[in-house]
């Protein structure tokens, strides 16, 4: 079997995105909303894995980036075009990540996880304070949101862009440097990688997408306040999806975001009171019996075939 080249993978992504772009005219509203959730989580999980999967960092900052993006939209709506808000939301998150990354990326493991989690709380409280003290409000009403079809297409575009970026990064020198950092950072440095710069660059790049997705999704809620958009659940969910899928791959997180979104929706409808319990149990089983994620199933299957 011929190996997939970067061009093949990008072409496949573009084709899939084009096919998905037609969905608003083919699907029911319910199915479309579900697809939108899938796309959002795919974008979040793929961009999380772009940095964290390669470097073995555990970042819980997704909620912070997402919330920042959402607030760019909340503040800009009415004066800022929707697409421009999405771009600005992404850029704001990327800039923030670069700044914070420069300060905390020397930490590893649990320290980094705790710091990035605290970051979300910090931004949330800062915005709450600002809104109360200067804007005299707790939350904001999103008036005149764009059409669902527009939102869907923008989210699709951002998520497809996240996948293409992840593919390009993986094939690039930056990707090689990140894998070296994940394996043995000091060794990578003795082979000429300026690890600090590589990490800040990649962390900032990977933050653009949750920022943009936050800005894009904010208009789905009619009323947003810091508690709802800086929801730590979004951060945890992203990490779980990426890990269950296989954080060192790109296809794994995509597959697992579909699985998660559909499963969550199904369980919520079938077992409204038990669904979180069931979801939790499934997760535990997956982590216990498939520590390499869904992607490792595929790898095992390929391995089996190549040996036969």
């Amino acid at each position, binding site marked *: 079997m011929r190996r997939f080249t970067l061009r093949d993978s990008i072409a496949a992504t573009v084709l899939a995105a084009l096919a998905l772009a037609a969905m608003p005219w083919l699907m029911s509203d319910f199915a479309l909303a579900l697809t939108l959730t899938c796309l959002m989580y795919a974008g979040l999980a793929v961009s999380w894995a772009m940095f964290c999967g390669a470097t073995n960092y555990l970042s819980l900052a997704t909620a912070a980036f997402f919330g920042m993006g959402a607030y760019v939209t909340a503040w800009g709506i009415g004066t800022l075009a929707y697409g421009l808000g999405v771009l600005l939301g992404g850029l704001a998150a990327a800039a923030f990540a670069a700044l914070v990354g420069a300060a905390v990326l020397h930490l590893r493991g649990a320290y980094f996880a705790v710091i990035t989690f605290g970051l979300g709380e910090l931004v949330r409280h800062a915005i709450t304070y600002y809104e109360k003290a200067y804007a005299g409000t707790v939350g904001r009403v999103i008036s005149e949101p764009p059409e669902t079809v527009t939102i869907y297409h923008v989210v699709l575009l951002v998520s497809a862009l996240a996948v293409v970026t992840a593919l390009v990064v993986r094939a690039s*020198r930056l990707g*090689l*440097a990140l*894998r*070296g950092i*994940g*394996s*043995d950072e*000091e*060794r*990578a*440095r*003795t*082979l*000429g*990688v*300026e*690890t600090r710069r590589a990490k800040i660059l990649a962390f900032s790049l990977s933050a653009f997408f949750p920022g943009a997705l936050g800005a894009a999704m904010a208009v789905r809620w009619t009323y947003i306040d810091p508690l709802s958009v800086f929801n730590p659940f979004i951060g945890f969910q992203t990490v779980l999806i990426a890990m269950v899928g296989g954080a060192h791959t790109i296809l794994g997180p995509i597959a697992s975001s579909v699985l998660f979104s559909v499963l969550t929706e199904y369980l919520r409808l079938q077992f409204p009171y038990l669904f979180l319990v069931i979801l939790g149990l499934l997760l535990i089983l997956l982590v216990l019996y498939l520590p390499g994620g869904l992607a490792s199933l595929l790898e095992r299957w390929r391995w089996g075939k190549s040996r036969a």
Partner: protein
Amino acid sequence: MREPLLAAQGVSVRFGGLVAVDAVDLAVHAGELVGVIGPNGAGKTTFFHALSGVLVPTSGCIVIVGDDLTGEGAHAFARHGIARTFQTPRVFKEMPAIDNVRFGLEFAGRTRSHAHDAFDEPGTILEFLGLADVAAVPAGGLTPSKQRLLEIGMALGARPRVLLLDEVAAGLTHAEVELTAQLIRRVRDELGLAVIWIEHAVRVLMDYVERVAVLHQGRKIADGDPRAVAKDAGVIEAYLGEQGEPVTEPGRKAA
């Protein structure tokens, strides 16, 4: 006289009250193969950490081809042509062997070319080391002795001017040590590198290097022709002080 490729001037490393390396001077030129020996805890590896930028010396400076790099990060040393191996092999375990070698070519050695373009290809480097058949195997799956060879390959990938080898012969059989030593001489000859080679098992080293420096309690107590150094009273005492590990200890340490 030619400018040395690497010059350590009065390098000291202190950890709190402990002086691990004490005002050591060492200059190496292109084409030189220099051994560094010393009893356990003499400060050999700490000295290497300072030479490769992994550790910033407390005082003294390190000059590489005329540039003072003291205080710079390890990546700057690597880009200036200092490549090293580690005592316990530190290969990128998840990556295929060939990507381990490619790594240095993509980063440290990107702006230089080798004296021999054959060494600009990761495949040729693996072949040279006799690792061509495991190119696609994740490095973590190789035997320890192959990981040691791969470490040399990673360093060669960085297109070095100075190669620092930290106990590459440890844990190898006598035949493997012999082979490794010949390999090191060949890269030195073919690529015109300066090689500094630390070894605890002194005998092997003495047979292969033209110059040897002895560290004892962080200080350099001898530096010169191996035969002369072996007879040096201070050196003999340093080794005998460490419960009978004489300079003439046979090279075969472990199988």
